[in-house]
């Protein structure tokens, strides 16, 4: 038996030329950007015109390349300056001390979008770690948002009570909405993917009902819009209302969730049960872990976090819910599935993944505004990243990476039949 041998020390290059999760994620980002560049180059009219010219004369080749690089460069520059910082503006603020709010707006927007995304993605990630698919996080966030908005707008009390109660309302709403599929799976075997997916439609219907019904509908409004929350119930902007920066105290809520998730997954015996169940359900059973209680608990926690994300979204941005709440592009509960995957279901991984997705979304809007390249490009880049992260074999082949030595990290969950 040779398994007692110590592992050989690996050089820095050897370490980074292996397919470790971080290397794969970084290379997937790179591939996403390359793929995005190809899309820009093949769809942008100016670029195509420049290339068409080389059919007449090869002399047009430098020009064509130039136009291509300029367009791609401009698009990516806009994504960066729109989501992180504009270096010129930053330098200006730094030297003159003026215009800080403007300079910080992109970062503030990215953080604002990332905050609820982190929370809901951790909810989804916790479920993944237990081998459960919570596809209904968006609906749970919707219910959390509604319940939070109801408490925030229809009850009146001082901030010290009102804000915690509002957040708690969101958690309870999400828990309720998550518990139902959990109970259905635990006691009848109904597959959670189907049930949670369908629950999203139920919650949309409920949302429309709520914002169009008398007690909750904004007084004097005919439209699908709910009441506005009291100032005592909202997550105020971190730098005051006057700064114009939307980043709110919600980031502390997200930070608390990250710490909670770290404790839950890495430190607690409950999380140990979750991970054992996710990694090997039969061994979990043989070790005395009750699958039922794990399923129900996971869905309570996952739904609770989704609900919290919903209320954080409302309380830190619009302060009311309307018929378009978390619909379409804003459906963070769906984005959360890919974010959790990209972040390997680990709390800090999810933070980085959320920031990346938020930045691509926010920066993409800036790019659309200034270059006319549609926002969908950001979605394409996000999708390509996730595609490559989900299939490390591809990345390994493309970059000829060596197999990573086995680590204790368990990424994917069990599949459909589980």
């Amino acid at each position, binding site marked *: *038996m*040779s*398994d*007692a*041998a*110590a*592992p050989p020390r690996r050089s820095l290059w050897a370490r980074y030329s292996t397919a470790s999760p971080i290397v794969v994620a970084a290379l997937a980002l790179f591939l996403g950007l390359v793929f995005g560049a190809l899309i820009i180059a093949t769809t942008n009219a100016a670029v195509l015109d420049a290339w068409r010219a080389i059919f007449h004369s090869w002399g047009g080749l430098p020009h064509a390349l130039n136009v291509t690089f300029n367009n791609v460069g401009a698009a990516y520059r806009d994504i960066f300056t729109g989501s992180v910082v504009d270096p010129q503006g930053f330098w200006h603020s730094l030297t003159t001390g003026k215009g800080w709010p403007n300079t910080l707006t992109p970062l503030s927007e990215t953080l604002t979008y990332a905050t609820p995304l982190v929370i809901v993605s951790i909810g989804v990630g916790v479920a993944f770690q237990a081998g459960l698919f919570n596809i209904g996080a968006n609906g749970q966030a919707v219910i959390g948002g509604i319940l939070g908005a109801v408490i925030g707008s229809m009850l009146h009390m001082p901030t010290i009570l009102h804000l915690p109660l509002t957040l708690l309302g969101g958690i309870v709403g999400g828990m309720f909405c998550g518990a139902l599929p959990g109970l259905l799976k635990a006691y009848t075997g109904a597959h959670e993917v189907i049930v949670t997916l369908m629950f999203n439609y139920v919650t949309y219907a409920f949302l429309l009902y709520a914002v169009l019904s008398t007690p909750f509908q904004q007084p004097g409004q005919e439209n699908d819009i709910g009441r506005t929350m009291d100032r005592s119930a909202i997550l105020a902007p971190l730098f005051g209302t006057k700064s114009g920066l939307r980043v709110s105290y919600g980031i502390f809520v997200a930070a608390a969730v990250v710490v909670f998730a770290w*404790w839950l997954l890495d*430190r*607690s*015996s*409950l999380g*140990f*049960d979750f*991970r*054992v169940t996710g*990694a*090997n359900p*039969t*061994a*979990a*059973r*043989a*070790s*005395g*872990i*009750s699958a039922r209680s794990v399923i129900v608990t996971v869905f309570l926690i996952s739904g609770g976090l989704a609900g919290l994300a919903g209320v954080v979204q409302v309380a830190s941005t619009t302060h009311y819910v309307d018929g378009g709440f978390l619909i379409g592009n804003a459906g963070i509960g769906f984005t959360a599935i890919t974010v959790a995957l990209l972040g390997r279901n680990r709390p800090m991984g999810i933070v980085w993944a959320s920031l990346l997705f938020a930045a691509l979304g926010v920066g993409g809007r800036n790019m659309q505004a200034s270059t006319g390249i549609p926002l969908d490009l950001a979605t394409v880049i996000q999708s390509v990243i996730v595609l490559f992260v989900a299939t490390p074999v591809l990345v390994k082949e493309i970059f000829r990476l060596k*197999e990573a030595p*086995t*680590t*204790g*990290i*368990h990424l994917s969950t069990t599949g459909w039949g589980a």
Partner: protein
Amino acid sequence: MQLELRGMTKHFGSLTANDHISLTVEPGQIHSLLGENGAGKSTLMNVLFGLLTPDEGEIVINGVVVPIHDSGEAVRRGLGMVHQHFMLVPVFTVAENVVLGFEPTKSLDRIDYRKANDEIRELSQRFKLEVDPEAIIENLPVGLQQRVEILKALSHDAELLILDEPTAVLTPQEIDSLMEIMRSLAAAGKSILFITHKLKEVKEIADVITVIRQGRVVGTAEPTASESMLASMMVGREVQLTVEKSAYNPGEEVLEIRDLVVLDDRGLVAVNGVSLDVRAGEVLALAGVQGNGQTEFVEALVGMRPVESGTITLKGRNITNFTPRRALDAGLGHIPEDRQRDGLVLTMSVADNLVLNTPRRAPFARRGTRNFKAVNEYAERLVHDFDIRTTSIQAPASSLSGGNQQKVIVARELSRSIEFLVASQPTRGLDVGSIEYVHRQIVEHRSRGLGSLIVSSELDEVLALGDRIAVMFEGKISGVVDPSVSRESIGLLMAGTTMEAAGV
């Protein structure tokens, strides 16, 4: 057919699975390839059969170097393989399975069943492999299914048969008849390459024995060589083949099972009214061919399968239909049959696996937060005490060899305070050294007064460990006998004969 392998070498990354293996099988010879699990036997066969490409070396058939790129080519060259797990379609007839892929046809592409049946009858007669060509495979006992596999190879004009661990699933009587078949095939001029890790069989049947260890040929031996010599060649050190047990000194009754009835996954009765008693300081071995209800029986004991009727009493406490958690807490230790499926979480660390069923027990956790210091100290101690070979307690269980994975489970179960041990196939797939170790641990705890039930389909293991031997057949106990009873009698009980007829 004469087959020669010259310097066969196969690497998997940094691992050398086959290191310049050379051997020659003469026509009409039964050549035994003996080695532990993981010694490289399967790799060699896969290379020979064209399923893997060798890095070095050549295959020589009847003096001519032949490249073999795929299994079709291997078959055309006269090689036939009988896999450990049969490659048969259960709902087809014997004839249909044998001609599968090479069906004789009549006009309009209809299968000519009469011709197929005739061919098989002719083959069966020629090689004395009686089997009804029209029988449905799933209705046949395992021994006959294996014959069908052999027939299938012969129908493709195989001149050299490779039998990969063919006796693992057979009763002693079926093994005897397989041996007969092998002898008659050899007499008819067929060459046989017989892969195994069982010493008794090798000695009984082989003309020549090649022993491989860690991918290398360590030597050849005559079948007259002693078992202990073969074992030490195989393992690379002296091995104790018998387990030394202290005197049989049973205490009070610990486990009492009465009229237990358990259903299998299809809802059919798998365990049919089993009653057994086990005392403290006693090992009750449950023998039987796989699939006679042992799996369901054990699952019912440990709470993983509902009990239809009957009772299980542990130290006077009724534990029938307990959940696994309550059964564990009641003091039932369990070494599961399939360690990778039921016993371990392979992606998790050795330390986590060592506390897999006690993560909440003090001092491993306090108020829901795990205490890693306590867990790690405990894991370090167990790794040391049970000689678990691992690079660290944080290494994933998947990085351990099969023997060491089993040691993790044995260490976990024997180190928490248990009243009774249920071990199901505790040494399946383990190398000789690990088998020795696991047996010693069980016997040691027996002398400290632990009662245990050891379920095994290996007769050697049953005889080595059991103070009493219960034999299970089709869900019933066909007899409880003393270990001094002859192998043949136990074999007959395993095949369903009554105690009287088995001569006990």
